[in-house]
């Protein structure tokens, strides 16, 4: 163990909630909420994986909306594949989710797998991802959504029963967003969401992702092979953020991590195959794994967090026995981190995901002009 030195920096934690079994998703969500994790991320898939299908997932918006009814504080982040989606639909569903969950919605954007194009009638590659799509799609998609959210002022709804006025017309506007790939007129048919803008999460896989994230991401998820790589990557990301005139703390960096429990005498076949017991490293599936006892995993997390490379972790349970594995993390590793003063011991007083992530509430972009 690495001694009791505690850091003042907050450690942020999210976890994947996936699979087809809704009751298991509820169990995982409740477990994550008890462990005071900041958010759940529901992954999306736009096609059936072949030849060996991985477990299909419920559709993120329907799943998270249902989970909003059985949880009360944890963030609910939906993965959206921008190549197959409309900003108007996404902005609206996120706003609805944000209202129902009292400010807990978020959006992870990815372009979507090329192989899924055939499910949406985008026959040619050029149609799916025209030249330059990658670089600007995430930016355009996020910008269009943010403009739609800002098409209403926060105080536009007045509900004056006496006067019979629902809202102040001067405070609702068309946005006429016209990008290269998306256009939408607005206004949105739902008022500005409680968080103003539900946070945007961008996974960093390519150079294009980095540039897009620097402009629009509130949270970035990296998939490094080693601590050295993580340090290098986060230096680069923070520099890119700065170049966009943004502060480093406006873009939280989480490393994707698969923790694998090794309790005395219970080293499973998987753990041995991974060969990562007692340390961290990348597996054959390309996932960063860390296998060990709760203390060893906490050591490892502490090392990474103290290095300053990351603000936290996105926990992706191994494909097999996801619930058990997550249970171990939530019930053994998190308490160990809490004992060390590294992870919060009480929930936030606010339900807003932005606030829990230490992100400020964005002012309405159309206000500056008026």
């Amino acid at each position, binding site marked *: 163990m690495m001694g009791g030195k505690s850091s003042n920096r907050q450690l942020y934690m999210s976890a994947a909630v996936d699979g*087809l079994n809704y009751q298991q998703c509820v169990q995982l969500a409740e477990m994550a909420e008890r462990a005071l994790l900041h958010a759940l991320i529901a992954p999306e898939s736009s096609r059936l994986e072949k*030849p060996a*299908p991985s477990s299909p997932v419920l559709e993120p918006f329907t799943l998270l909306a*249902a989970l909003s009814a059985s949880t009360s504080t944890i963030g609910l982040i939906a993965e959206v594949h921008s190549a197959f989606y409309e900003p108007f639909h996404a902005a609206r569903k996120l706003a609805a989710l944000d209202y129902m969950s009292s400010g807990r919605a978020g959006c992870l954007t990815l372009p979507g797998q090329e192989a899924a194009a055939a499910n949406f009638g985008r026959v040619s590659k050029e149609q799916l991802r025209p030249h330059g799509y990658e670089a600007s799609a995430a930016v355009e998609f996020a910008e269009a959504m943010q403009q739609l959210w800002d098409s209403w002022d926060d105080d536009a709804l007045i509900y004056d029963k006496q006067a019979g006025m629902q809202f102040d017309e001067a405070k609702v506007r068309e946005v006429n967003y016209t990008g290269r790939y998306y256009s939408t007129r607005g206004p949105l048919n739902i008022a500005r969401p409680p968080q103003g803008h539900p946070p945007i999460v961008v996974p960093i896989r390519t150079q294009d992702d980095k540039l897009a994230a620097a402009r629009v991401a509130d949270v970035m998820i990296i998939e490094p092979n080693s601590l050295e790589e993580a340090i290098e990557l986060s230096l680069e990301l923070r520099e890119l953020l700065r170049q966009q005139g943004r502060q480093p703390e406006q873009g939280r960096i989480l490393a994707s991590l698969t923790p694998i429990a090794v309790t005395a005498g219970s080293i499973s076949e998987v753990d041995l195959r991974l060969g990562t017991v007692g340390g961290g490293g990348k597996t054959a599936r390309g996932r960063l794994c860390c296998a060990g006892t709760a203390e060893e995993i906490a050591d490892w997390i502490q090392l990474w967090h103290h290095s300053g490379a990351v603000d936290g972790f996105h926990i992706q349970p191994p494909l097999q026995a996801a619930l058990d594995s997550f249970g171990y993390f939530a019930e053994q590793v998190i308490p160990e981190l809490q004992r060390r003063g590294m992870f919060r011991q009480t929930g936030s007083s606010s339900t807003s995901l932005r606030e829990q992530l230490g992100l400020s509430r964005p002012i309405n972009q159309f206000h500056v002009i008026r």
Partner: protein
Amino acid sequence: MISAKRSMHINLFLMNTGHHEASWRHPATDPRRITDLNYYRELGRIAERGKLDSLFLADTLVLPPTVEHKVLHGLEPFTLLSAIAAVTDKIGLIGTASTTFNDPFHIARKFASLDWISAGRAGWNIVTTASESAAYNFTDAALPPHDERYRKASEFVEVVKALWDSWEDDALVADKESGLYADMAKIHPLDHKGEHFAVRGPLNMPRSPQGHPLLVQAGSSEDGKSFAAMVAEAVFTAQPTFESGQAFYADIKSRMKPFGRSPDELCILPGFFPIIGDTLAEAQDKQRELDELTIVAYGLKRLSTLFKVDLTDCPLDEPVPLHLLPRQEEINGNRGRFELVEGMARKEKLTLRQLIMRTAGSRGHASLTGTPLQIADELERWFLGRAADGFNLMPSHMPDGLSDFVDKVIPELQNRGLFRTEYTGNTLREHYGFSRPAGKRKLEAHT
């Protein structure tokens, strides 16, 4: 011939603070709750107490021009229905989704997902979207013409059903021992290439509990009625009178045969807008209270939108200026409702103010202000007289209008043996008495 006894079906048309356009101004409603999940939890519980078949969320893809004085739809159907699924047990969950501004793959996936989450309670109200301004939220091209939208809708539904059927019922194996998750021999791509869509498939989700979520439709034009006769299992419609209801009923059912369908494979559910009082006088007081809150400026905007002509400067107490209205064929939007409201004004020689008031609550649907007995009588008359297989209940204001119906009218219908006293099934299809559509079988293997 022995035929199973018909029983009435009731869907709750759930709309923000209620169906009366002034409901949000009523002292007993709270418009701020329309984005609050707890509000819908309460309404869902009341509806389940009444053993209603289903609840329905309408949807539009544009901010209505009349919103200044009228409450929004509120939340988005997929997200709200999924959340309601988590806080209810039995009631069916029907949501609107447009075939003009969505991808079939997304819609197949979202309804299948809702069907899994709700354990078989999902239903789809298929609409072609009549709003011309909705188009501009998705593209810079105008709304496609009426017949084109219905052609696209037919292909859309065909693709969605094929996606739902792309997994055989037993394709999911999930055998932990052998590591076989799905039997790929039982999962089939579509390779659909049609006039509007190219969709390879298969869906990335097993066949859902109902096989096909219930298909609902609400078109009233010629195109709309034929489409309903071809694909729908329930039809929402606005019928102002018993006679028009009977005619519509006979019309739709007679259109089914050419598609190889029997009339009892489809439920016709006209909208019904009741205002309920223990005495007639009390009911009338309730109605007056709501009508007096109606805003004429809003009514003018609403009728102007429907009639596609600016009526805002027309004198209120003179007959509706019918000569200013476009011809019905020129309407690319909601043609069915145009015909209905225009007909009402013409036949009854209404003034503009009268037409505004007449359509303020029911928007042209059947309505009755009266005692629980009177209301039950009227529903029974429509039901037995084959003007309806059930109703699309439109409470005037929420939650009171709903709980009045559930606590006062439902018991009366139950006493008469017209409506269930307990849920006998678990899925939405079972509530409506429909079987689960057979899935794909490897027919080739047997021939």
